[in-house]
């Protein structure tokens, strides 16, 4: 059970944070199809940043001094760097969509095509290969929080809660959840959030009340880019051994699905991401999931074909969407470039 929860979180957190990125953009009226591209770019920037720190020797110093707080600090710094570059990258989209009033779907697709090409090009120059990996060590050995890093003995029993949430986890998971909560509150409980949302529903009305629609849309997409960039790095860190290869296994697009599935509302999005993460996890590790801890691997013993489990996440999405999509309600003005004259 602890294993299941832990793994589910690892899949769900990048999905959740990137889906929230989508929410921010779309709520401000811009369709951000470029989530995938920004994630790829963010993952690349993050890994590159870690490598630079490693080259400078910071990591080895921290490791020798057993200063695990410093390592966690570097990780947070890296997340920030990935977020910043993701935001910069997303400016391309805002520029095309807001200033040039271009078609947002095409702009997003262009970024999706640009990102992997650009990233692979840079990786080839930097590393003369197709994957940018850590200079030394593994993601888990640098960044993962384990019992031993917290000062407990290796064999200590921390109870269900401790075993699940304090052992073999990444700090990034909790940072993402925290960011998710803060930004959700920002979107719903602040003046800024209300203004942002109004620009996605009826920008003409918002403008007539003195809200700068352009600025709001820029803000929405930039926040979106920052979140997606950060999500990209978190993905690379937790599921790809902190390596970048111009690919995030379609997580950006999955996040779009999660966003629609979550009806553009943060709480629903979180639920959708968890559901999706759970089934992704089951699909990959059904053979070693022991739900009640009695040593019986129920799912493996059922004798169901492997491929059925692999299909599950997609099957579930189809089914759930079929039942819930009637109620789905996209922001009204999304995808329409704001034109003052149509007021």
């Amino acid at each position, binding site marked *: 059970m602890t*294993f299941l929860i832990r*793994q589910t979180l*690892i*899949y769900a957190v990048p999905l959740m944070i990137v889906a929230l990125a989508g929410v921010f953009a779309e709520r401000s009226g811009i369709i951000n199809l470029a989530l995938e591209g920004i994630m790829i770019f963010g993952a690349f920037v993050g890994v590159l940043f870690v490598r630079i720190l490693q080259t400078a020797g910071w990591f080895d110093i921290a490791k020798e001094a057993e200063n695990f707080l410093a390592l966690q600090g570097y990780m947070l710094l890296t997340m920030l760097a990935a977020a910043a570059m993701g935001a910069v990258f997303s*400016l*391309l989209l805002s*520029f095309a969509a807001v*200033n040039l009033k271009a078609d947002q779907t095409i702009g997003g697709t262009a970024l999706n095509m*640009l990102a992997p*090409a*650009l990233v*692979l*090009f*840079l*990786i*080839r120059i930097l*590393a*003369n*290969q*197709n*994957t940018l*990996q850590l200079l030394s*060590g*593994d*993601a*888990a*050995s640098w960044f*993962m929080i*384990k019992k031993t890093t917290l000062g407990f003995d290796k064999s200590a029993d921390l109870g269900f809660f401790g075993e699940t949430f304090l052992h*073999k986890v990444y700090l990034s998971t909790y940072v993402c959840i925290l960011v998710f909560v803060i930004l959700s509150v920002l979107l719903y409980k602040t003046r800024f959030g209300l203004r942002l949302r109004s620009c996605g529903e009826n920008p003409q009305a918002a403008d007539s009340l003195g809200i700068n629609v352009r600025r709001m849309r820029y803000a929405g997409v930039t926040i979106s880019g920052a979140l997606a960039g950060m999500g990209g790095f978190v993905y690379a860190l937790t*599921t*790809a*051994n902190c*390596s970048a*290869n*111009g*690919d995030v*296994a379609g997580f950006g697009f999955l996040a779009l699905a999660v966003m629609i599935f979550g009806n553009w509302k943060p709480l629903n999005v979180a639920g959708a991401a968890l559901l999706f993460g759970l089934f*992704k*996890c089951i*699909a*990959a*590790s059904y*053979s*070693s*999931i*022991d739900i009640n801890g009695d040593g019986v*691997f129920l799912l493996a013993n059922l004798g169901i074909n*492997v491929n059925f489990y692999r299909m599950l996440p997609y099957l579930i999405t189809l089914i759930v969407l079929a039942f819930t999509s009637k109620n789905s309600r996209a922001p009204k003005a999304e995808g329409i470039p704001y034109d003052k004259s149509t007021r």
Partner: protein
Amino acid sequence: MKKFLAILLALTMVFALVACGTTETPAEEPTEAPAEEPAEEPAEEPAEEPAEEPAEEPAEEPAEEPSEEPSGAVDPETIEDNMTSEDGTYELAFVTDVGQLKDKSFNQGTWNGVKAYAAANGLSYKYYQPANGDQATDDDRYDAMKAAVDAGAKVVVCAGFLQETALKRAAIENPDTMFVFIDGYALSDEDGNVLTNVAPIAFKEEQSGYFAGYAAVMEGYTKLGFCGGGGGTNPACCRYGYGFVQGAEAAAAASGVEEVTINYSWQYGSSFSASPELQTMCNGWYENGTEVIFACGGSMFASIVAAAAENDCDVIGVDVDQSYESETVVTSALKGLSAATEWAIAKFYDGEWADIGGVSVSLGVNDDAVGLPTDTWSLENYTVEEYEALLASLKSGELTIDDTVLEADAVTGVELEHVVINYV
């Protein structure tokens, strides 16, 4: 201000696009490899430093002990990958398998052999990557070989058994060019005549796998895992797995271990690439007691090592010594790619090509082409001396490894008393 910003962004966009455009012509590559997932084929893995390849003199004997340090010779890693010849022709050519050149394993190991020979003898050399990365078609591979021949190659080294169809065509069309077929077998034309300009070189991976399995159980591991690449269709990976299980069985019998369980899987490895799913699966194994996993397939290594590091467990590497890659690697099942490549090229230049052209060679312990890395030995309960004794008994024929059903995705040819295989 706004205008300025607009111009700045437009410039960024332009530069980004320009940068993007340049990808089309990455400097030297004649045949474009659109940088794909490192997905190579016969069981190989990213190993930080295939420096262990012996780089030995072109002697009669193939492949020296692969674990030997490059005794005094130049480290092939330090030889430039790209060289420019004065007359624009390149005598030695290397056509990569799927995956990238610098995969820290199969391609890189073979390439190091080409480079080492070329550097030692002052020859020109060049590598060719078939277009479309791991989606390369036979035509893409043929085009790469054709490009090599057109550039004046005398010997073309082709890595990976997937090259068969393309190689056959290229070899028939260019009878005066010699081809080395790594991980391959003898080819013949339509009339059944063996192509004597193709020198096939294969390895006895089952012996290497046997050592790995034996060492693991002797070391005290009782719960093992095997993650193979190629979805069970890659002969080299199948041989590794087949030997691994037998080695574990023999060690259990010898040391009196009652039961050894092996999780045996071909899942998530069909393209030899790393994936979150593979990492989760291995995480699950480790979580449930598996102590060491034999990572037998290209870049799958990255996912398996990530899972091992999360759980403080261990990994056995493949093809080259991968202990430089991660602290979790306890040992590696080796095959002497670089040495064998050099050996084959030397045959051509020594005028002895007839010895190997069209003759299937399978290099094993007797050629010192397979084994475990003794220089970076980190096992504690199983010593180098014990390993060398085992090696000697296999060499002398005292010990035999069953090879009745070598190339299947399940271990069916041998009776297992102590080992329980759990097919995942």
